[in-house]
């Protein structure tokens, strides 16, 4: 196997390196990469889309179709994790719950019996780890700022580095931090699996919905220019508005999916026990 791998690697690498001789020198402004399409993007991008951040302009407008499917890829991964991992394990006999307000521990024999108000109780299982006060407090303080920053990144995507993906990931990270510092259950108590699922769907629906709205308004799919009919914005910035809209959708989807993937992988699909 190793020898075979070596041979394959050498052949591929040799081919690739051999071909580099025809490349234009690195950073040469006259290379076709810089002369064919990019001048148009750079010089016209701002006028055509109204987004100074050209990367966002190309990402969300010129190649918005790509980006939609990029979001779909994330979405797909999330659903795939649910499909593969999510399991409902049998309730074991004899579970112990701690009543969070009082700290009273109670023991339940009957596997089918449910608690009348489960939000106040938390299951005590073998994976149980006692909390560390410092970590809890620090993350409790940090998380709001992280989330504010995430929103900023999303909202400001078309002016400065950033956008839906980045913002969504940061927001998801804040929730994952919560899950790490407290435990999975308490993070799921704040944002339930159902909510995550619906949010992930909502995000992509927002994106494609905007596109279809443009279609209904007589344009092509994702032709934001048409949105002038329903949005009271000056035509120069209407496309930027459309981009903002799709970025928000992306933000939702990515955030939700990040948390979904984390929760499923971290708990092997058994959400009721944390790390």
């Amino acid at each position, binding site marked *: 196997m190793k020898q075979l*791998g070596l041979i394959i*690697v050498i052949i591929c690498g040799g081919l690739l390196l051999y071909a580099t001789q025809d490349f234009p020198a690195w950073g040469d402004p006259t290379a076709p990469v810089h002369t064919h399409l990019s001048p148009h993007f750079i010089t016209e991008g*701002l006028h055509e889309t109204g987004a100074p951040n050209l990367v966002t302009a190309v990402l969300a407008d010129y190649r918005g179709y790509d980006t939609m499917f990029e979001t779909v890829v994330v979405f797909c991964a999330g659903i795939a994790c649910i499909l*593969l991992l999510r399991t409902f394990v049998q309730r074991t006999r004899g579970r112990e719950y701690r009543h969070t307000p009082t700290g009273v521990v109670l023991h339940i024999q009957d596997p089918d019996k449910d608690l009348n108000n489960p939000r106040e109780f938390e299951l005590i299982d073998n994976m149980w780890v006692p909390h560390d006060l410092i970590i809890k407090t620090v993350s409790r303080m940090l998380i709001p700022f992280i989330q504010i920053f995430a929103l900023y990144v999303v909202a400001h995507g078309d002016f400065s580095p950033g956008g839906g993906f980045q913002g969504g990931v940061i927001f998801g990270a804040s929730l994952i931090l919560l899950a790490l510092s407290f435990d999975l259950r308490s993070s799921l108590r704040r944002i339930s699996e159902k909510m995550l699922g619906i949010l992930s769907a909502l995000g992509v629906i927002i994106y494609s919905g905007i596109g279809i709205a443009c279609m209904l308004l007589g344009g092509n799919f994702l032709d934001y220019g048409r949105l002038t009919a329903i949005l009271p914005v000056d035509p120069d910035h209407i496309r930027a508005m459309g981009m903002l809209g799709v970025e928000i959708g992306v933000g939702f989807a990515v955030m939700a999916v990040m948390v979904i993937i984390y929760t499923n992988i971290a708990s*092997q699909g058994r959400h009721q026990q944390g790390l």
Partner: protein
Amino acid sequence: MPDLLTEIVNKYNYWLYIILMMIGLYAMIAKNNLIKKLVGMNIFQTAIILFFISMGYKDNATIPIIMGGHGGEAAHKTIEASQYINPLPHVLMLTAIVVSVATLGVALALIILIYQRYQTLEEDELRMRVKQK
């Protein structure tokens, strides 16, 4: 020989990234542990991402965000194509990053399933256990 050297010096970025790719590919083929294969896979994909990004670079140009594009005063003054680097590769690679992340997620999920079934991630042991079943 010297011209080869100059060749390499001129395009050292491509050389580096291709070598990096091949390291990743080799790891994917030759490693025995599934996680290590996965790491190799990520090296491979990351190297490709770097490869693309580097092709967007242009001498003495800056990141593709129009200076002072906020207020719209830039909307009137003409923009030189030579000022800014090519935004397209960045866009493409944003997508590629997301794709690789998604693939990684699914792969990890599968690895968890495999571990639940066979209690090992070493390929040879896996083969043995599969035969036993």
